[in-house]
């Protein structure tokens, strides 16, 4: 087991390094930081632009491979370089990682818990009204792209503010109201009000996926012998389902949870951008438009690391939860 784990870890590290390098090379080749200076008035002298770009390790006159080596050397020392405006990328991203993490964690927890509950309830009464309803809703949700869902959520929130609450309850735009200074509780409430709509947007899609997944897993488990044994020894249907059925069916869901967590780091980008949250994904989109090679490369690095950590965590979680894997 330890040997397997070590090999797996080594493979993941190599893969992450290659993926991050590839992302840097792609970004450095496709983005053009020099274009940022083209539209300036007065036009800066070319020598000054060159010097500025060279100082940021963005000069396209330096060979690509040389720039890559400088960048990689910095990353190995924990330095992600500086953005096009000259501020260190690392500090900016550290602050943004917190924002993204908050949104993703809450969305993922809401999405998976509600999804698992819905899926389990649907499976317990297969072809009942709830099963049909949740299947239909999940089908519909899976066909709605996030950009549409987020906009519909904003429209719905605005409508609810105007017609249901009569005041602004659901807030859109940023993670908190700018310049609000009203003590701890009011500040927390304000953050909560901003949190609702993005979390709903992020979790609805996840609920659809998790509920379908959980339903099918539950249906597989429901026909198993050990569940009949549990019933035969006198457990009620509900207790047998929850204690023996749900717990077993949760194992693959837990590994899926870890996997989704890794991909959501960038997957939440659309939600962040539309709701104006200053997270990693939002930064990625704006960095592409400002030709910010170092920021793009740093976020790619984090994204590749997150995916690989998540898949590793998924494997470990599976081994920890499923006794059959441990024995084998």
């Amino acid at each position, binding site marked *: 087991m330890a040997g397997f784990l070590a090999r797996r870890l080594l493979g993941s590290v190599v*893969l*992450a390094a*290659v*993926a991050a390098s*590839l*992302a840097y090379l*792609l*970004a450095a080749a*496709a*983005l*053009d930081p020099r274009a940022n200076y083209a539209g300036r008035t007065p036009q800066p002298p070319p020598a000054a632009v060159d010097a500025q770009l060279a100082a940021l390790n963005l000069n396209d006159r330096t060979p690509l491979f040389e720039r890559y080596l400088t960048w990689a050397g910095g990353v190995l020392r924990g330095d992600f370089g500086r953005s096009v405006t000259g501020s260190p990328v690392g500090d900016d991203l550290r602050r943004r990682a917190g924002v993204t993490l908050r949104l993703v964690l809450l969305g993922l927890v809401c999405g998976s818990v509600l999804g698992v509950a819905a899926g389990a309830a649907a499976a317990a009464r297969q072809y009942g009204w709830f099963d049909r309803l949740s*299947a239909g809703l999940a*089908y*519909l949700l*899976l*066909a*709605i*792209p*996030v*950009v*549409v869902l987020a*906009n*519909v959520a904003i*429209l719905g929130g*605005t409508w609810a503010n105007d017609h249901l609450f009569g005041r602004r309850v659901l807030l859109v735009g940023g993670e908190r109201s700018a310049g609000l200074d009203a003590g701890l509780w009011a500040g927390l409430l304000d953050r909560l009000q901003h949190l609702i709509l993005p979390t709903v947007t992020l979790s609805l899609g996840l609920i659809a996926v998790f509920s*379908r997944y959980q339903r*099918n897993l539950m249906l597989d488990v429901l026909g198993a012998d050990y569940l009949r044994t549990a019933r035969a020894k006198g457990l009620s249907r509900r207790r047998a389902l929850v204690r023996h059925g749900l717990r077993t069916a949760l194992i693959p869901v837990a590994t899926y949870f870890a996997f989704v967590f890794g*991909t959501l780091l*960038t*997957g939440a*980008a*659309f939600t962040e*951008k539309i709701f104006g949250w200053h997270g990693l994904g939002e930064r*990625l*989109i704006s960095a*592409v*438009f400002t*030709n910010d090679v170092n920021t*793009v490369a740093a*976020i*790619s690095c984090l*994204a*590749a690391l997150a*995916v*690989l950590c998540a898949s590793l965590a998924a494997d470990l979680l599976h081994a920890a939860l499923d006794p059959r894997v441990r024995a084998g």
Partner: protein
Amino acid sequence: MTLSEEEVAGELGPAMAAPPSRGRVLARRFLASRQGRAGAAVLALMFALAFAGPLFSPWSPADKDFTAFLAPPSPRHWFGTLQTGADVYAVTLCGLRRSLIVGLLAALVSTALAALAGAFAGYFGGWTDRVLGWAADLLLALPAFLVLAIMSPLFGAGQWPLFVIVLALFLWMVTAKIVRGMTISLRQREFVRAARYLGVPPVKIIFSHVLPNLSSLLIVDATVNVSAAILAETSLSYFGLGIQPPDVSLGTVIADGSRTAIYAPWTFWFAAGLLVVTVLAVNLAGDALRDAFDPAAKGPR
């Protein structure tokens, strides 16, 4: 009870038991399910709307009506107009056409890639297998959205075929792994071994013996990819990272509409609705198709 064509043919023809063709069996199974009928009908309607719909409107996507800015739907403008005076009906259908084409092409390319990569990796094994496996793992580790966003400056106006290819590059990995596994087991089957011993070159074996036997998987995969590609394309185009102006796709139309959606709902809902209905129809048709190919695995997964 009606006599189907092959029954008539069977009575008239000299050979009694001509088995019904596989295509016809599939079509009958597909159309027997309500999902399949609904999905196919809606999809046909969408294609008709996208390709024939603009013929019925006097406005082209580039036209601007300077007498009606942000006007609600009316007999003159069926879906209303945008802030620029452009006709929403014309723009939306143009976007729908582009999104459908991009989705179909990306799905075809990615399924072809998956079939080739998986079959070659599975058939040849060894280094081919290892290199293709690494490539797939690498592309799985890099989020597709990230690479597409990085490369977006290259997808300027008129460069959408490049976008299609890059999009397809990120949809093939999982299917390729499945194809690889199935190819390894097909490789041991008698007919493939026989072909090999007869001296048929490996590439020819892959194309005439391996891939045809995986056709059901590949066809279903292609339909699933159509909806994935349409969703990815519209989301990226929404942020200006995919199809870029002056080209129009449903994503760019929805992005324009979302800015005015609160006080001019027609600029947003027609495009968003068409997009959701299209993806829904593709998913329904894909599920029905899978059931038609494999009646044992019935039920949505």
